């Protein structure tokens, strides 16, 4: 896999909120790359900083230090208008809560065409109308929905409106921030299938942010596990499930309930205590312990992990 096309490159990213006493380091020392055409998942629990990273890439959150590059160009910090416009068109986001991510007082028609209006991406009214119709059909909604308001729809339908809104911009890279967490179980499947279908048809690259490891197994190519602002492990999907090395990854995996009574009843829960690491003298580093399998550990731990492989 020598000529992998790096689309997004995050280097030494640090994001801090507040100042002085109230300073809170949300993201620290984060490094990863996303290749064109893959689904890269960032998995962590609440407060891990995963959403913050996603929002920093799409420029809603500011960064404190480090760089985020897209197609080789730096996109964090201050950038010129032309690049800003390019970022908006090429990178889009799907949000978590379908109840909060649509403007309740606007018609679906406006909601989906909002991006088109912003950059006059249509020739005339008829062209715009057609684009909206196409977008609705692509996500499996009926064309007559355009003249209605969000509250008239269910959670799954609303989420699909949000997807249509993002996709009408013809992006290359889509950040999906927990797109199915707020949906009912049977609707999740619909949305996941839709995301996969759109990826194949439009050659998209996804950053999938989630807290549910079992979901990401189905959809991702590579997984990064993040804990309290720091990525602790990064590897191909099956590799993470086959050889979870970092104790947090193991704890996360053991905690996920599997819908199979036999397995669940025999399961032993692994609990993670961050105090188990002694980083006072032996400092941890971000190391590629195996091909394409990265881990955050100090030398002592690395030696232990190597024996387990």
């Amino acid at each position, binding site marked *: 896999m020598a000529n992998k096309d790096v689309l997004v490159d995050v280097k030494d990213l640090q994001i801090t909120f507040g100042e002085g006493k109230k300073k809170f380091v949300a993201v620290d020392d984060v490094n990863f790359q996303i290749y064109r055409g893959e689904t890269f998942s960032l998995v962590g629990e609440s407060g891990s900083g995963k959403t913050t990273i996603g929002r920093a890439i799409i420029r809603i959150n500011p960064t404190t230090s480090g760089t985020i590059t897209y197609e080789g160009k730096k996109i964090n910090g201050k950038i010129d208008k032309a690049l800003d416009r390019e970022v908006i068109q090429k990178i889009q986001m799907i949000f978590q809560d379908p109840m909060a991510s649509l403007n309740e007082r606007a018609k679906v028609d406006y909601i989906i065409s909002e991006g088109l209006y912003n950059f006059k991406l249509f020739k005339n009214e008829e062209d715009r109308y057609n684009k909206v119709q196409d977008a609705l059909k692509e996500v499996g909604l009926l064309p007559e929905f355009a003249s209605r308001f969000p509250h008239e729809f269910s959670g799954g339908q609303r989420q699909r409106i949000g997807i249509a809104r993002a996709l009408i911009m013809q992006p290359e890279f889509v950040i999906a921030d927990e797109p199915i967490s707020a949906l009912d179980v049977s609707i999740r499947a619909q949305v996941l299938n839709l995301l996969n279908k759109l990826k194949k048809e439009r050659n998209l690259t996804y950053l999938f942010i989630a807290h549910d490891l079992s979901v990401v197994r189905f959809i991702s190519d590579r997984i990064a596990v993040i804990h309290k602002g720091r990525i602790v492990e990064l590897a191909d999907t099956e590799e993470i499930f086959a050889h979870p090395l970092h104790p947090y990854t193991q704890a996360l995996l053991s905690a996920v309930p599997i819908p199979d*009574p036999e*397995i669940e009843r025999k399961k032993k829960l692994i609990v993670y205590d961050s105090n188990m690491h002694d980083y006072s003298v032996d400092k941890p580093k971000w190391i590629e312990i195996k091909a394409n399998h990265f881990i955050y550990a100090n030398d002592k731990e690395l030696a232990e992990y190597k024996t387990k492989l």
Partner: protein
Amino acid sequence: MERNKILSAKDIEITFSLRGRKLTAIRKCSLDLYEGETLAIVGESGSGKSVFTKSFIGMLDNNGSITGGSIEFEGVDIANYKKESQWLDIRGKKIAMVFQDPMTSLNPLKIIGEQIREVIELHQGIKGEESKRMAIEMLDKVGILDPERRYKQYPHEFSGGMRQRVVIAIAAACFPKILICDEPTTALDVTIQAQILDLIKNLQKEMGMTVIYITHDLGVVANVADRVAVMYAGEIVEVGTAEEIFYDARHPYTWALLSSLPQLGIKGEPLATIEGTPPNLYNNIEGDAFASRNTHALKIDFIENPPYFDVSPTHKAKTWLLDPRAPEYEIPKTIQKLREKTGGKS
């Protein structure tokens, strides 16, 4: 095995009046609860699972009422209770409930120790030092370290998982017979969820409680449940032991629920989905409510609502597919895979 029925709901019908119209949230549900078991009620939003259990403790919203059926508990039909005073003997004392969001379940202005102690005082009549001691003991039981110190703290000084432990402590403080947990871990991180589920299991064993879990997460169900009831559009469409439901599901909705789980999906292939959306319960529903979304729908599904068909003494499902007159059908792949575990019982 003879087990005691601790609660028996028969043909319950619950309607709400909303904006001048009537919504039938529960359309003839019957459920038996046996002493000491853990029963999971699975359903999606709008299935009525919360509403159904709220009727057991008289906590329906003001515009809702039980318009049919009976709930037998300790020899009394509590579905008939109309006055608050009648519920006081049951709610919190004999049947307790744990809700989803611990932040809104706790009084932010009172120390949590007091909130537990109050409940003990109210229901057991024990006051002063004795009730305080019992409250601290309860905190210890739910796994809160240094309970004496934490007794004096306010809810905001606890993390989400800790708060939920406090809520469970309040609910369990009076040793209720039945503990209803309404999505107790949905708002929590998955590692905390696992710990809370373990906690409830331990408490149940220690205190001899019967537990009802309301959830949409089949993983949680697999972890905790002895028996499972699947709800759709205000009805219980299938009920059986956990093994029967997971390895020998018979209702197309249950199949659809199981097949659509990403954990059971095959990478590269689309997940099985349930097209469309649940029906509008304002309207009168003709036939089987799941018919329009059922890939295995029979013509009769659109005409007449199916009765329960018994698959085993402990397993029954409400689908015309189990009628002897029904044709042969193919079970979804995922279900076949699950069935293979038990050697394909049918």
